[in-house]
């Protein structure tokens, strides 16, 4: 993924003009540009607001080409394994949201050249909710969701 696309991707969270100049002058490596973390997206309280802040849009097209592997009932809400696989071509990023978390955006994986449509991680879920995977490809947003139940156990300790 080129530097231009990255800047568009981070639109709204970075002073694009300043960084653009610095990049042009060769003063910043792409890594430093990417270090501008999308603060507003992570602070957003709804899925729509998070996607707007992250990608500039929350228009999602449902897709059956994305599959989410996550437990039906999480053993422990603090560690919920989630994997997202997709074969949608021209993939740019995979974003994982937990709808009912106070801040739904958990992670966004920006895929570089050669990267396949697959990511796996472990997330915290505050309560039973839909885990939503949003795939950005060819400039469009595709999504699917899976409900994960988070329960209260009986054994503390």
């Amino acid at each position, binding site marked *: *993924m080129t530097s231009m696309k990255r800047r568009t991707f981070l639109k709204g969270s970075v002073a694009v003009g300043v960084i653009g100049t610095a990049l042009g002058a060769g003063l910043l490596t*792409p*890594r430093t540009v*990417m*270090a501008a*973390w*999308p603060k507003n997206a*992570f602070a957003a309280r709804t899925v729509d607001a998070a996607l707007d802040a992250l990608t500039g849009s929350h228009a999602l097209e449902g897709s059956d080409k994305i599959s989410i592997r996550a437990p039906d009932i999480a053993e422990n809400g*603090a*560690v*919920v*394994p989630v*994997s997202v696989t997709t074969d949608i071509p021209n993939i740019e990023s995979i974003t994982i949201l*937990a709808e009912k*978390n106070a*801040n739904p*955006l*958990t*992670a*966004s*994986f*920006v*895929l*570089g*050249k*050669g*990267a*396949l449509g*697959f*990511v*796996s*991680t*472990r*997330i*915290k*879920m505050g309560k039973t909710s839909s885990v939503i995977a949003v795939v950005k490809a060819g400039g469009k947003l595709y999504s699917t969701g899976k409900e994960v139940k988070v329960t209260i156990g009986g054994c503390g300790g």
Partner: protein
Amino acid sequence: MASIKIRAKLDGDTTTVKALISHPMETGQRKNKKTGKKIPAHFIQEVTCEHKGNVVMTALWGPAISKNPYLSFKFKGAAKGDTLKLSWVDNKGKSDSTETQVR
């Protein structure tokens, strides 16, 4: 600092990378049981993987990623013996990186 454990395995033309990072991933909402005060947020914000000068993957994380975070992704274009570099930066500006060979 050895906070990253990483494995990169080549199968056909696809390299699968799995990484485990030692990090508290504090949300900033947990309270210290003894003092009652909130433990400040301390979490990894960005993880990058580089191969031959190319950034293969950038993970943008929030505090909702589990403690001692795990990450896996796949990519094409690497050969056995190639070096991969995985780095992370957290909200306090701390960072670490490690290199591994594709097996």
